[in-house]
């Protein structure tokens, strides 16, 4: 694979990988460091990349493993729950603006979920991957993924309802 091909076919998945790393590590700078290392590893193995059915899935596996290793390493200090900032500006109806107010709350709720649930929510609800793809990346069976996803979604909903009841 040439540099040009690498730029065209591999580099564009950077944001998806970054979002996954950020979901696990909860820190923007750490996540970019990890993703840079992921790309370096992909580049080193550029000749093998053609053999993988999906370069994206392969890259996500590396990203996930590196992030989890990082969390496990004794030098890693768990990041504080960072303040969430909306990346896009919304010009929307009143109800959407209310949603936006909820958004940093939801971010905090999700970041408090167990790592595995966080990863699955990220892959399914944000990146919209099929269950089969997630199962391939995480080396888990479909049912376990469904169960974890359902548990995560319900937890978020319950916490949100609790918060809404408290407010009104």
């Amino acid at each position, binding site marked *: 694979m040439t*540099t040009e091909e*690498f*730029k065209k076919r591999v*580099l564009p998945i*950077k*944001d998806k990988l*970054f*979002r996954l790393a*950020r979901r696990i590590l909860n820190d*923007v700078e750490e*996540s*970019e460091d990890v*993703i*840079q290392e992921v*790309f*370096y590893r992909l*580049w080193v193995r550029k000749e093998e990349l053609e053999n993988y059915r999906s370069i994206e899935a392969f890259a996500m596996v590396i990203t996930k493993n590196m992030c989890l290793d990082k969390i496990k390493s004794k030098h890693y200090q768990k990041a504080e729950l960072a303040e969430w900032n*909306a*990346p*896009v500006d919304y010009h*929307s*109806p*009143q*109800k*959407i603006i*209310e*949603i*936006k107010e*909820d*958004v940093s*709350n*939801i*971010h905090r709720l999700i970041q408090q979920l167990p790592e595995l649930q966080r990863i699955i929510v990220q892959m*399914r*609800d*944000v*990146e*919209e*991957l*099929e269950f089969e793809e997630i199962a391939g990346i995480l080396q888990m069976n479909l049912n376990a*993924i*469904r*169960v974890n*996803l*359902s548990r995560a*979604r*319900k937890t*978020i*909903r319950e916490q*949100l*309802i609790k918060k*809404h009841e408290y407010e009104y």
Partner: protein
Amino acid sequence: MNIEEIKILTEKYFEGLTSVEEERQLKDFFASGDFPDEMKSIASMLGYFEIEKEVTASEDFSHKVIRQIEGEQVIPYYQNRRFWFYFTGIAASILFLVTFFFESRNHLPNKSYTAKETQLAYLQTRKTLAFVSEKFNKGVKPLNEIGKIERNTEVLGQISKFNQGLTQVNTNVLKIESGMDDISKLSKFNIIIEP
């Protein structure tokens, strides 16, 4: 899609039974903002996921990666600080172990001695120590001369007499000063007379 269908889909969603397609329909529906209040929680969740999908790495990130793969920024492992940290540590441990190994081998008694041999070794050692002690005593003898220095310094006690002389000089100087005062009084007397 009517609200009843949406409610059914929502229930399926929380059980993890919706397809990616159905989840997209839900997201589109709630993004319109036209939904009953009791569905606010799921609307917020799906809204959050839509926003999160737009999150990107920082702008110069691609450049960083390209620079790295094009070799401009590839740092060989041996220039890495961590490498030297581990390298020096490992080198020092190996050196220590090697030294320890050879030293301990030299000192290990690898055969036993007969009584005659030990007796011989004992006598030899005694002879050597006696020789050393004799030479040592001879070498130390000149140091006895240090006692003479002590005797000579006694003379320095005479300095106190010098001090006594000095105080006498001081009192004499004071007397001279008072005499000078008297003389200056005389000069005042001169000024009055002159005109």
